[in-house]
């Protein structure tokens, strides 16, 4: 997939500058707006050419055009300033980027603290052959470091270089070879997004207003105001849902997971594309989720916690697999954590937990082995969470009044910010305390072991081709099994 095999960039001590086309890429979104507006305005004038309100419409157009023009100039200027003032390079194991005209700032990231490296191409940048390089570190969004924009081939070479140095392989490494594990076909992605959406919350959002209007009309005759509000709410709900689907489908389009020595590589995107590379040992926790309507098809999705993935795009960034056969999803989770998740024995809470959680206590489960801690829950939508011991941050235990009356308690393993929450709920209070102490001890030992970096884990073998080919019939396809 790597198109241009560029020379490994000469980074040490040399300062680099951004690509000369940076200002255009900066202004890309505004230019798109202007274009859309011009086209729409053209359609509008051709439709209403004979109307009396031509002059006022013309004035409105003039105002909008001038506002958009000003925006374009401002973003172009911003881009030019960024182009003229930004310099980056490597210095004693640190990646450094200096920027700013009036307020100079210098950001540095230690390569051994690097959490992930993403190459992102917004639409305009893609057209121009540029890309943004984003280095995530553990911390807030501000702590992540963005180099925008540089040539795409250069970004790829830079990524390989940084990841190579981060893993301690040394300078001058070429892009690590990768082999693809799975590509999600458009049909199954669309199906998955729609099926995932069907949940009580969305049904309520859409059906709530409709039901309310129907009830109001039935009880006291037609009620125009209530009907209007109801329809308004319904349309608004519809709009939210449509936007969500659009966003999901375009960002997760052509989703490919590949494995390379420097980590998992995730490529996705329809208009704006993104290639994330996350080293295996930077994935903090994982969960395998089966929304209610995935289960008839035997599908599952996988999401992950990665330190430094916070902010606006987090709900897409943390997707490790939008849809796949369950067997493959389980294999992938096991591959990342290095232990076969299905082999970890899981136990239920004690029977008296039914007074605390009437129906769903049966679906709760907790188990662990030498390497990982596993929880599962959910009656209709099922999920399994897994966290390696060396990745747990802290452990805590809670018990409310009602739980305590029943002699129950819950144990939580704290992971970095992300979609995965690991909770062993409704355990016997003594057992919970044992789990707490055991996890604290295991995490301590795992940290001690982790001081010497272990070789890449060898997960269980990929489930044989049958599982993959059955889904290929249903629309999803694996692009070839792995050894």
């Amino acid at each position, binding site marked *: 997939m790597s198109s241009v095999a560029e020379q490994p960039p000469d980074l040490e001590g040399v300062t680099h500058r951004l690509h000369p086309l940076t200002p255009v890429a900066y202004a890309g979104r505004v230019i798109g707006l202007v274009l859309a507006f011009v086209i729409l305005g053209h359609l509008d004038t051709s439709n209403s050419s004979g109307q009396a309100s031509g002059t006022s419409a013309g004035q409105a157009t003039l105002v909008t055009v001038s506002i958009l023009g000003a925006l374009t100039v401002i973003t172009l200027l911003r881009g030019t300033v960024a182009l003229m003032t930004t310099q980056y390079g490597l210095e004693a194991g640190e990646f450094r980027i200096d920027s700013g005209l009036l307020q100079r700032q210098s950001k540095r990231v230690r390569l*051994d*603290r690097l*959490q992930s490296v993403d190459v992102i191409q917004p639409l305009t940048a893609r057209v121009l052959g540029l890309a943004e390089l984003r280095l995530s570190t*553990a911390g807030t969004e501000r702590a992540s470091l963005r180099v925008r924009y540089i040539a795409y081939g250069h970004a790829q070479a830079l990524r390989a270089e940084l990841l190579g140095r981060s893993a301690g392989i040394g300078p001058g490494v070429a892009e690590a070879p990768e082999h693809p594990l799975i590509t999600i076909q458009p049909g199954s992605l669309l199906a998955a997004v729609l099926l995932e959406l069907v949940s009580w919350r969305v049904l309520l959002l859409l059906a709530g207003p409709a039901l309310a209007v129907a009830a109001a009309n039935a009880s006291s005759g037609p009620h125009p105001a209530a009907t209007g509000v109801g329809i308004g709410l319904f349309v608004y709900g519809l709009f939210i849902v449509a936007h969500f689907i659009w966003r999901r489908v375009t960002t997760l389009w052509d989703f490919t997971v590949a494995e390379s020595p420097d980590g998992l590589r995730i490529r996705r995107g329809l208009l704006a594309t993104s290639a994330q590379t996350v080293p295996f040992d*930077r994935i*903090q926790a994982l969960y395998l989720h089966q929304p209610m309507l995935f289960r008839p098809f035997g599908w599952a999705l996988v999401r992950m916690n990665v*330190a430094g993935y916070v902010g606006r795009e987090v709900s897409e960034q943390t997707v490790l697999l939008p849809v796949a056969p369950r067997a493959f999803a389980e294999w992938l989770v096991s591959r990342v954590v290095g232990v076969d998740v299905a082999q970890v024995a899981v136990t239920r809470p004690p029977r008296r937990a039914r007074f605390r959680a009437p129906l769903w206590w049966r679906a709760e489960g907790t188990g662990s082995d030498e390497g990982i801690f596993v929880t599962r829950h959910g009656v209709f939508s099922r999920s399994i969470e897994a966290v390696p011991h*060396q*990745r747990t*941050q*802290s*452990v*805590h*235990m*809670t*018990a*409310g*009044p009602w739980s*305590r009356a029943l002699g129950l*308690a819950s144990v*939580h393993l*704290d*992971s*970095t*910010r992300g979609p995965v*929450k690991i909770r062993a709920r409704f355990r016997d209070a003594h057992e919970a305390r044992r789990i*707490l102490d055991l996890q*604290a001890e295991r*995490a*301590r030992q795992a*940290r001690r072991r*982790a*001081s010497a970096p272990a070789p890449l884990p060898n997960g269980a073998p990929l489930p044989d081709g049958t599982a993959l080919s059955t889904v290929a019939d249903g629309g999803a396809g694996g692009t070839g099994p792995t050894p």
Partner: protein
Amino acid sequence: MRRAVLLVLGIPFVGAAAALLYNWSAVACDVAIGVGFLALLSGWVIIGRNWHSWGYAERADDLLVTHGAMFKKLVVVPYGRMQLVDVEAGPVERLFGVVKVKLHTAAATTDARVLGLVPEDAVALRDRLRALGEARAAGL
């Protein structure tokens, strides 16, 4: 401290309620005073129990923090996971001359606070924790 806050805010509130009701009926006024007194008393007791429930223990490799009388919580924070240690004091805490020590890890859900320490103790605790954290620091 919370008891003081309770009294400072609670007694005028009960008084005001009683005064308002006095114009309406004297019995209601008496009832209001009675209920208010009981509420304050139970608040006093609950705060006492809550205060007793706070505790921390420095172990060889981790810090144990516990609190909560009704909703119990026990947190284990390994020294190697601590990212930073804060010493904080809000306005009311400053009035009473106490501070709290807060521990942060890379996880946002870690809720480890030690409340109501004398400033000297808090600073000593922070320095100890920081030294231990540096000695055992582990990467993410």
